[in-house]
């Protein structure tokens, strides 16, 4: 199965962005993701929603998505318009949640020095390359296990299990 490439501009944040700032617990009294997405990243950056309209690739530092297991975090980022996440490293549960939501999520060491806010990026998921067109840099991606690529290509774990009925 082939994955669609993603292109767009980088939206930069730093290290240890946790799920409490991605979506504060005080809003979790609903499961309506569109409503929740209005509060995505609110404590960290009140301008997030506006920025996503032009910058759809999240480029972050170490330990992205640490803290709570709330899958709402991956869901609101997607609902707000984020199409891929590139991080120096991820917290374990968030990484799984992102893949399960069908969000391409890659770990790229040293990424922070290669991408600035607003850089034009092209994520080639068939050749396993990230091209920073603004800086004319190409970065090799480490492949995800085929198993995870199948989940991504299905559009997430719900569709994966809906089709296959088993693991």
């Amino acid at each position: 199965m082939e994955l669609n490439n993603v292109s767009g501009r980088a939206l930069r944040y730093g290290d240890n962005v946790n799920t409490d700032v991605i979506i504060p617990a005080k809003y979790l009294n609903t499961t309506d993701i569109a409503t929740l997405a209005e509060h995505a990243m609110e404590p960290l950056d009140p301008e997030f929603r506006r920025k996503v309209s032009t910058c759809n690739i999240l480029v972050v530092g170490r330990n992205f998505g640490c803290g709570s297991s709330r899958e709402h975090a991956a869901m609101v980022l997607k609902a707000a318009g984020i199409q891929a996440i590139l991080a120096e490293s991820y917290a374990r549960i968030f990484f799984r949640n992102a893949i399960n939501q069908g969000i391409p999520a890659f770990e790229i060491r040293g990424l922070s020095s290669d991408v600035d806010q607003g850089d034009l990026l092209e994520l080639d998921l068939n050749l396993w390359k990230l091209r920073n067109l603004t800086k004319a840099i190409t970065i090799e991606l480490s492949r995800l296990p085929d198993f995870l690529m199948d989940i991504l290509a299905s559009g997430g774990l719900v569709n994966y299990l809906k089709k296959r009925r088993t693991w």
Partner: protein
Amino acid sequence: MAMTTCEKILAKNSGRASVSPGDIVVADVDLLMINEITGPLAERAFEDMGFDKVWNPEKVVAVLDHAIPAVDVRSASVMKKMREFARTHSVKNFYGVGGEGGIAHQLLVEKGLVGPGMLVAGADSHTCTAGAVSALGIGVGSTEAAAILATGKLWFRVPETVKIEVTGHLRPPVMAKDLILSIIGSVRADGATYKAIEYCGEAVSKISIDGRMTIANMSVEMGAKTGIVKTDEATISYLEKTGRSLTLLESDPDARYDKTLQFDASDLEPKIAAPFQADNVMEVGKVEGIEIDQAFLGSCTNGRMEDLRAAANIMCRRRVHPHVRFIVIPASMKIYREALREGILETLLSAGAVISNPTCGPCLGMSQGVLAADEVCVSSSNRNFVGRMGDKTSRVYLASPTTVAASAVAGKITDPRRMWS
């Protein structure tokens, strides 16, 4: 092949003779826990996947704990859906408001629902608390919980294991919380990402199951997949009381570890994690004197008998500072009743504390103690991220129950050794 406890459990549950770190396995889950925050999303994903039958309702535990009783119409509706789901699918292990309820991680251990050798998945990051009784407790997302509801299985990457060996013994009022804060300060917030931690050593064997739960609980604050405390006499005698049968899966003596870290408990000073990261750890002495508005004793980290007793030791014949709200939340109804019988609640109430029903509430700013702008709280909970307990300008210091109690009395961050008897 020599394996660690974590590897043995993953091998057993995936039907393999052995596994190695990095292997991806599909394993049978022995128990799944969902709560009212993650459960409703799991239920929706379960239905979207096209399943209508839960694989084994006996192996599902559904808990309302994050903000109970309901704080508004929306949260009431979410809980109503959880109750209906549990009824429809005959999930008998359902815990709600009152009765035998409480915080899920406490209930799993206290009710004997988890034990050594079990693979426990919970749609909550602090599921690693089950490691206190040598279970492999792993936090998962809601869609993964749905996959387990449907198939009873989930994929796991076999983690490397880090061994943490602690020598010496804790000197009260220094508690297990001070030890785990000290470990987190050294390992850092992402120092054990994707890894399993195995806790052992003389000091750990002298720590009660209550304290071991505090330690296992905060493993995730280092990014760990799980934290397992080595089974010993204390584990066995605790499990006998809860009626849980025992499957011993000890690490082989020649098992391979990613690394071994040594700590000593004897010289440990009271520790505190300053805003806004649990790994921003220092000695309490370094921030003594910072004025506080609220002190919180509770949560899945520190709402157990040992914690309440330690606070009562400090509160006895003392008063909560007039500028401080001292919020005490037993982690379960069972603990609530026991603390009532022991007179601990009376001591705390007489000192000026407020006792709430078991809930996660204030820990994540959902109910029963949300902070206003610029307020400061000393908390026995596990996270102090920006806005975690309320307004984004509020500040949370994580500390032990004795430090929380001493600070509640003084109205400012205080070393508990000044008040311990």
